[in-house]
């Protein structure tokens, strides 16, 4: 990868970048193992991987594993929050739309969703940042926690975390919301006229019970499919949104690492992210079997 990491090591932003002497550069390279032929260093990287070590960050002079572990929870928090919010709200609004289909509420919601589902997450995030955070001052501008605060109770810390997370999660969810909404709406529209729904109503079951137990059940499998399929895009969106809000997650870290050409860190983060998404997809296969015993092999 083009770009010498030692150029960035020797100076901060704005400072004079002094050159290392040849001797020092050779010393650094030996220390980080960068002077070995490519094949050798690749093999030793793999060997380290199996032992659980991801290498040493060149810029931060800290173990890559530690950096990743520190940042990972925030990204996971954002992604899970976005999934939760978009699924719950999407299901609720979709069912509502299906119930009042083709009336004003449905049309308004449909238009709204169509509009917002197409705008990319980081643009929505920018919009939120400037309108709600900068102009109106309702939400903090960056970070996940207010630093330098005196000791606070757990509840206060939690409230603070949520306060910081509202805008990023909202930005991420709005992009997914449209998809979930449409899915649930269409499924419910095709389910509602069915005979067994009428039977259930005739039996005297409450509307809610019918809706949830008989109706939404059909949406469960497609929803999970949709969630897992979009996990990759969601992580990508999280990367951008973290950059917009300066949220201290893996996304911000990877863009900083790319700026300073910190190879081990980039590799480490990238590996972790990809492995997580892939294993989530593997888990989803198991989940399908649990949710619907009729699913045969090779489906989905």
């Amino acid at each position, binding site marked *: 990868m083009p770009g010498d990491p030692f150029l960035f090591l020797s100076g901060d932003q704005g400072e004079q970048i002094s050159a290392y002497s040849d001797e020092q550069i050779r010393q650094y390279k030996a220390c980080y193992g960068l002077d070995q032929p490519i094949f050798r260093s690749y093999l030793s990287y793999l060997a380290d991987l199996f032992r659980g070590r991801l290498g040493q960050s060149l810029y931060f002079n800290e173990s890559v594993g530690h950096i990743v572990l520190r940042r990972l929870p925030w990204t996971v928090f954002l992604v899970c929050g976005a999934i939760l919010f978009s699924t719950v709200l999407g299901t609720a609004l979709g069912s509502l739309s299906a119930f009042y289909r083709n009336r004003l509420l449905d049309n308004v919601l449909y238009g709204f969703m169509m509009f917002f*589902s197409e*705008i*990319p997450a980081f643009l929505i995030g*920018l919009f939120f940042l400037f309108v709600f955070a900068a102009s109106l001052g309702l939400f903090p501008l960056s970070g996940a926690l207010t630093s330098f605060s005196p000791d606070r109770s757990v509840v206060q810390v939690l409230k603070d975390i949520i306060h910081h997370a509202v805008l990023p999660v909202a930005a991420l969810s709005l992009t997914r919301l449209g998809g979930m909404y449409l899915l649930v709406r269409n499924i419910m529209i095709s389910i509602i006229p069915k005979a067994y729904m009428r039977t259930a109503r005739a039996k005297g079951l409450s509307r809610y019970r019918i809706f949830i137990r008989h109706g939404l059940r059909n949406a469960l499998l497609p929803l999970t499919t949709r969630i897992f399929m979009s*996990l990759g895009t969601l*992580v990508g969106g999280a990367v951008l949104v973290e*950059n917009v809000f300066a949220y201290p997650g893996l996304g911000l870290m990877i863009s900083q690492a790319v700026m300073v050409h910190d190879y081990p860190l980039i590799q480490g983060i990238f590996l972790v992210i990809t492995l997580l*998404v892939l294993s989530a997809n593997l888990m989803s296969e198991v989940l399908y079997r649990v949710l619907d015993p009729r699913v045969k092999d090779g489906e989905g």
Partner: protein
Amino acid sequence: MRYTLPGKNLGARMEQMNRFTKNLHYFSPTGKAGLIILSLFFLMAVFSARLTTHPHDVSSGKALMPPCFDHVLGTDDIGVDLWSQLVYGARISLLVGFLTAGISGCFGALVGMFAGYTGGWMDRFFMRIIDGMMVLPDLPVMIVLAAFFGPGLAQVILVLSLFSWVFTARIVRSRVLVIKQKEYVIYARISGAGPVYLMRKHLFPEVLPLVWVSMIRLAGKAIVAEAGLSFLGLGDPTSRSWGLIIYHATRFPGIYYTRFWTWWLLYPFLALSGMVLALAFVCRDLETLADPRMNQKISGGV
């Protein structure tokens, strides 16, 4: 937009053009609005030199001037006129979007047709690759690749195409599988038709509408991805891409405490959203036109 099919005579081509313009009437109002907006952007990109009075890459006024008579949309932090930047940025967005769509669309269609037609282990092999790539988080990989290949428009297009072809391939393959079962194809094969003939005469025309739709969708995604990469600072720094304007704006220290964002950030934001939305609306209408069966169940944003 013209259908340019190889080996078709002029009569068929004219008929297709007529059919196309007739179909335009079936566009919903949003679709028509989308088309108008897209053509506006297109005109903006083509006639950039005539539409701007100031250069787009050289400082031409005081820094950070609000919109006024001389600089219609204001200037950025080094004094370059924002309107010129926007207008030339349209070129970048359109170029990247449609080139990526074209390359990955063609490649994906070819792979999809090949995989669908061949069947067997080769088909399964391609499907594994496609499924794997669809699930991968594309942005982190694109970030790493973009940083690896270096800044530059060609590299960005390459990286974007690398990830976009899978969508077209998948759709095309499904359709080819369906067509393969049709009677006339089976009869043709029995009569001794070779694969090239079948592909040219039967598969290709059936698949083409899907490919167009997929290309437009890919163009939208590519434009967004390019803006995202530029926003992170990985795009071409010499191009005046809209994402790059936003990048500079958000890196400006103290941007949140000043009023500069009301023009410096707002207009590229509007331009990007406008283009993406226009493409999305057009895409939705094309989807319902091209294949009425796959309208509501499948579409709905990706």
